């Protein structure tokens, strides 16, 4: 342990202290600050893009115990062991870790942690040299890598098998079987179909799924010659919906029937959009309404108004909080995973259906982990649960 004479922030107090205590009998004790920190280590911060060093220590014996005098810890850094230490920051008492993210990769640094009571500071021995660097693989994410590779592998494997012509059983989903019926009914009644792709933008996977399903629904309305109205809450979604519907009409040989003016942007505002769509429902009187995508509180405003107009309503979302409202107010609801499976169902393409089989195997694996992990946990073994721990994104 060394005591460094540099006390820049408290220089005056120090001098006054010397003057006052010069005559005191208990000089030695009064001069010594709090007990120093122990077990200081400085390492390159793992799993980062470089530029930071992690310093850890065990708190001073006077921090929260002993003399209770520690107010904080001053972090000092230098490129030489013996001199040139500069003040970085002071962290509050009780803290035992600091990340210095101002380092230059490839430079060696030394650190000192000084326990301070506001007047005196007791420094640790310098630690180092330590050098920061960037890593190519995030070790804490090995579990995610395995999960990603495994689940993607399963999906790809079954897509590949489907390519080879293996027949697949796929259970019926009522909401998807009703799609044809709903479009057919709109045609018979001579009324339009309304398609609501949620209120989120194209960065949301549910919106993307909603637009993909829109393509399948548009193929049907094109065949029947039924108008398809798509109000959107985001300009990008409008663009994507226009592209999708146009292409669907082209696919079934009805490019002439495509009317881009039916795919409208209303407003980004959640309730402004709800007000606008409600207005459309009561005035255009669609015979079938689809809600496919990410929904928030507006879900029930839309679904109740839609119900009051007597339309067949089919909803699908992966927003757990909104599912209850669609379930109560709509005729059919695709729950969570079913939304993402809908396009594969409606396409009836073997490749897409193959991916569903892959998903099922994913579920089987999770069920196995649940069973095994819980049994192990009941006997006090938690390694499986520890292994599943993931850090922040």
């Amino acid at each position, binding site marked *: 342990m060394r005591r460094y004479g540099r006390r820049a922030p408290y220089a005056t107090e120090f001098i006054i202290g010397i003057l006052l205590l010069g005559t005191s009998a208990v000089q030695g004790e009064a001069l010594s600050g709090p007990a120093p920190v122990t077990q200081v280590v400085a390492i390159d911060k793992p799993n*980062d*893009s*470089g530029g930071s060093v992690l310093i850890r220590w065990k708190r001073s014996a006077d921090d929260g115990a002993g003399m209770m005098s520690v107010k904080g810890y001053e972090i000092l850094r230098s490129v030489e062991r013996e001199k040139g230490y500069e003040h970085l920051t002071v962290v509050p008492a009780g803290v035992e870790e600091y990340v210095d993210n101002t380092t230059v990769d490839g430079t060696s640094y030394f650190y000192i942690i000084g326990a301070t009571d506001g007047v005196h500071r007791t420094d640790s021995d310098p630690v180092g040299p330590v050098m920061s660097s960037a*890593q190519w*693989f*995030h070790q804490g*994410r090995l579990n*995610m890598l395995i999960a990603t590779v495994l*689940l*993607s592998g399963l*999906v*790809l494997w079954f897509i590949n098998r489907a390519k080879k012509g293996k027949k697949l059983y796929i259970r019926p989903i009522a909401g998807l079987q009703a799609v044809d019926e709903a479009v057919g009914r709109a045609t018979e009644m001579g009324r339009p179909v309304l398609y609501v792709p949620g209120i989120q933008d*194209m*960065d949301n*996977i549910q919106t*993307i799924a909603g*637009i*993909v399903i*829109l*393509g*399948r629904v548009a193929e049907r309305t094109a065949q029947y010659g039924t108008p398809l109205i798509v109000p959107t809450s*985001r*300009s*990008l979604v*409008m*663009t994507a919906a226009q*592209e*999708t519907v146009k*292409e669907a009409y*082209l*696919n079934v040989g009805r490019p002439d029937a495509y009317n881009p*003016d039916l795919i*409208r*942007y209303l407003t980004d*505002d959640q*309730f402004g959009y709800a*007000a606008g769509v409600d207005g459309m429902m009561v005035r255009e009187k669609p015979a079938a309404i689809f809600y496919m995508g990410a929904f928030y509180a507006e879900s*029930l*405003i839309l*679904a*109740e108004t839609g*119900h009051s107009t007597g339309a067949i309503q089919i909803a699908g979302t*992966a927003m*757990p909080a909104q599912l209850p*409202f669609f379930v*109560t107010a709509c005729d059919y609801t695709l*729950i*969570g*995973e079913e939304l*993402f*499976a809908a396009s*594969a169902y409606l*396409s009836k*393409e073997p490749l*897409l259906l193959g*991916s*569903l089989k*892959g*998903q099922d195997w*994913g579920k089987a694996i999770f069920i196995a982990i649940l069973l095994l992990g819980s049994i192990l946990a009941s006997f006090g073994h938690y390694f499986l649960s520890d292994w599943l721990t993931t850090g922040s994104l």
Partner: protein
Amino acid sequence: MRHQIPLIITFVAGITMIVQYFVPHEPFAALSQQFRIWFLIIATFAMILGVGNIIKIHVERISRARPGWGYSVILLAGLATTAISGIGWGIQPGTIFFYLFWNLLIPLGSTMFALLAFFITSAAYRAFRARTAEATLLLAAAIIVMLSRVPVGTYLWDRFPIVGNWIMDYPNTAGQRAIMIGIALGVVSASLRIILGIERTYMGAGK
């Protein structure tokens, strides 16, 4: 070629985003934030298309004097006033923009939102019928949890809050978790289909 390039872009962008999660090293480090900003910029440009779409549809409605064209005038006037005042004179408190936000948009938005109080009642009344075992469970859980949340429930039976909390913490959590895990698998599969270009209706690449 026109059809190929978008598929290649999708593939490269998708794989890059997956890789960046595992690689802390540059150039992957801040990529997801960088791409987020790019996305927002593209979305802002798209806003021009969106607003253009509104103007086109409503100007047409007015010029052809279609039924309800007067409402289109109101819509366009509202759009012009907020957009011009906001872009021209700023959006902080004290501006015309903020006055409109406060006295027009807020009451409109809150009232639209508040319609839910009525709709949640009519939906409950209509749908909560003990027709099947499933419907009965839905109804029972809803009523218990509802009563567990208000003073009148406690007044009727002092254990309502405990039972309500138990339903929220166990059977409810179980159901939600099953849905969430299923969703994760659905997303993995749907994302892969899109990245690999198997699902391409949205891109207009056809079958």
